[in-house]
């Protein structure tokens, strides 16, 4: 009796659909990651509480006021046009201020006091100017009844 020769079935996996699928996913994730515009940080800190017994270095503090129209005042002097978002004059003054504070070995501090209707972009412009002048201690005057928190 003739034995039937058993065929060796070659194990072939067709990978084409999988590759199609993977490519599709790849393209999807690539596109979705580039859609997101990367966000950047501009930070400030609220003044914390200091222990009564701690000896506190009195920082050199300046207050920057922002009016509704976007005018920026430092020590009652107006700096830069309300439309100018780079604020070169303010940055120049702030750099001088920081250098003076550094020379006196006290921390340079900025308090920003915007009026209620000031747009966030203007506030960020001023924060940006502080960052440009490398002043790290920036805070906000936000208290009601002129009370700073």
């Amino acid at each position, binding site marked *: 009796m003739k034995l039937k020769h058993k065929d060796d079935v070659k194990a072939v996996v067709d990978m084409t659909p999988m590759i199609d699928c993977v490519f599709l996913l790849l393209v999807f994730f690539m596109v979705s990651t580039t859609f997101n515009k*990367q966000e*950047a940080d501009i930070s400030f800190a609220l003044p914390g509480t200091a222990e009564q017994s701690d000896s506190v270095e009195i920082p050199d503090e300046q207050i920057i006021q*922002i009016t509704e129209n976007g005018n920026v005042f430092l020590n009652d002097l107006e700096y830069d046009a309300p439309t100018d978002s780079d604020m070169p004059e303010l940055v120049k003054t702030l750099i001088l201020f920081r250098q003076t504070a550094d020379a006196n070995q006290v921390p340079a501090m900025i308090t920003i006091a915007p009026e209620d209707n000031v747009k*966030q972009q203007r506030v960020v412009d001023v924060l940006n100017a502080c960052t440009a002048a490398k002043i790290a201690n920036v805070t906000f005057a936000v208290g009601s009844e002129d009370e700073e928190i």
Partner: protein
Amino acid sequence: MKLKKQEEPEASVDMTPMIDCVFLLLIFFMVCATMSKVDQTPEVVLPIAPKAAIPDDLRGRGVVNIVPLGTPVGGGATSEDTPFIIYGQVTDEPGLVKAISERRATEPELRIYMRVDRNAEFKIVKRAIRACANAGIFDIIFGTFQSASAGGGS
């Protein structure tokens, strides 16, 4: 004369390295996509600050979104009473303080990341800052873009 039968070599391309490579890319982009997932309200148009720094460490951040008053968002419209948006839901000042306090209980290093629209008024931001102070958070970050152009920040 016997003609030599021309052998047709089977055109087979080894696809294994390419598939390896594509898989690697796929995983890379998948991880990127999940990492950049934060509580973002798409209605917020961030202000521009060229000197802002792109952060390396995004952990420990609680996000508060603020849009100009009256802007309709997913979870309802913002109003004078409920101007803040957390995870797509509008909330008021006590709600914000509560949410931050609860989160701070589990994450003591919590920092607040405020995504404030460039046209939002400071009085709302002021209330949010006050809420943070009431919840015991003194470290606050404003979200910005480095440039006005679309695409990734430079």
